[in-house]
């Protein structure tokens, strides 16, 4: 196999406090190949968002990061300021849960979409607008010319998230980091946005790191899954959804209500830190 696009090897993130230290990512390792999609699944506090922040080196300076993160063979942790800026501008594109928190409310959709192209890439304004319109059309935004003159508050959540996807695709990145991009949306808008992301990504051969708490959704849109618990990946691979082997994954899958069958009572997770530590100790022995 050729060198993966993104590789994390034993990444550890430690939060340094005045008198104590807390390890919040503990030995996270995974690879994403060119054109491959990895779903990083876990509950609140499991460290999945911290992982994406580590990948883009956006962790708070209070964190110490150990291990290695390489993108296309280059060490992300070793990049100087200009290499890091280029990496964030050109190589990775980010989509977040709340698009409204990541657009400037006083700039029009057109300004938002064309700004980076015009400023950083030297594309002229008219060409940038032409590209923006073409992409909005591809991500299913009707009447794209008129949308360019609208402001974020005039758009629904699902529409704004499609604008975000368009803005990421415009930058022509090689890796997309999508952190719970559909959590705030209705089921139909979620299906819509994920289908668009999926088809655009595949058409362009982009890699995807998809962060979600929803195992079903991740399984539907990713080649492989990695399940996180307490800052560690407990299980990863293509088998995770259909034939999970780790007890935490098994319990997590069982706790979700099933639309095809009502349970007498939903199974409650028994997995906890104590069991987690014991299993780890047993695996080491």
């Amino acid at each position: 196999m050729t060198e993966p696009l993104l590789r994390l090897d034993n990444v550890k993130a430690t939060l340094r406090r005045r008198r104590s230290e807390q390890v919040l990512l503990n030995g996270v390792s995974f690879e994403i190949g060119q054109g491959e999609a990895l779903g990083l699944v876990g509950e609140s506090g499991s460290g999945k968002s911290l992982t994406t922040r580590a990948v883009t080196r956006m962790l708070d300076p209070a964190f110490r990061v150990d291990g290695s993160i390489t993108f296309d063979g280059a060490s992300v942790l070793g990049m100087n300021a200009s290499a890091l800026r280029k990496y964030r501008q050109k190589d990775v594109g980010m989509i977040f849960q709340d698009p409204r928190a990541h657009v400037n409310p006083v700039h029009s959709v057109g300004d938002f979409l064309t700004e980076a192209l015009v400023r950083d890439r030297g594309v002229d304004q008219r060409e940038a607008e032409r590209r923006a319109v073409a992409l909005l059309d591809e991500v299913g935004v009707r009447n794209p010319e008129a949308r360019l003159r609208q402001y974020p508050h005039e758009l629904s959540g699902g529409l704004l998230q499609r604008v975000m996807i368009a803005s990421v695709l415009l930058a022509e990145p090689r890796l997309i980091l999508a952190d719970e991009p559909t959590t705030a949306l209705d089921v139909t808008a979620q299906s819509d946005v994920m289908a668009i992301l999926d088809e655009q990504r595949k058409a362009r051969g982009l890699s995807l790191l998809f962060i979600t708490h929803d195992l079903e959704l991740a399984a539907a849109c990713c080649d492989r899954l990695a399940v996180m618990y307490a800052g560690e990946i407990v299980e990863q691979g293509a088998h995770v959804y259909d034939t999970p082997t780790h007890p935490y994954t098994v319990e997590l899958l069982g706790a979700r209500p099933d639309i095809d069958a009502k349970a007498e009572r939903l199974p409650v997770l028994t997995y906890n830190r104590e069991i987690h530590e014991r299993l780890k100790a047993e695996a080491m022995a």
Partner: protein
Amino acid sequence: MSTTDEPIIVAKNLRKVFRAPRGAKWDPIIAVDDVSFELYPDECLAIVGESGSGKTTVARMLVGLETVTDGSLTVRGESRAKGVKHLADRRRWAREVQYVFQDPYSSLNGRQRIVDIIAASVALHDTAKGTTPKAAAQGILDSVGLGERFWTKFPHQLSGGQRQRVAIARALAADPGVIVLDEAVAALDVSIQAQILNLLADIKAERKVSYLFISHDLAVVNQISDRMIVMEQGKVVDQGVTSEILANPVQPYTRALRAAVPRAGWKPVRRERLAV
């Protein structure tokens, strides 16, 4: 639930129109349009729909947070369409129908210990029944799984699931006939969601309380509700027994909603290709 019982809530041709205030220019928004349903004792009725479908507006009219534009809305035979005049009526209304919001953090007083939050509600609605409000509050917190070590905590010291238990306890403190659960489990992790759904099932079995369960998540609705109504753009487009509707959805909008729920073997579909 049995159909021989009198319904607690009857909504007939309910309508809510939001009009622009003076000086503002926008067309009236018909949020709820000709909605009728009944809620019987000891049943869980789900209202399902996308954001903007009007499901929350129906619930807000029920507790008096919105006025009714047209149609009738009665709770135990008493009309709620006209609004309340006296504080005592307002209190009685609140006692009959309690409301649990999606985000408990913004609906709990951050400066009060949780036992005091619950005790205040017990005292207000005079539901202590021969004991002190504080003792009654402790009993209610126990029954929602918050034991003694939680009683003196403040809301910010609790996790999201624990805070939602406090919100449920506060609703129970009024000893209501109906609890409105407005996306009450939507923001919770899967493991916590399962615990809260089980807790709600236990409370319903024990207290014979009715739920009006507002949600866009059909898998959750399938787990908890007896009957459901589906709303689209303010109108009811489908209603019936939950298990029957979900086993064999006939209405196109219900089919589209069901098809959008991720499950084994599912693939996301673009909306224009969904049969809406």
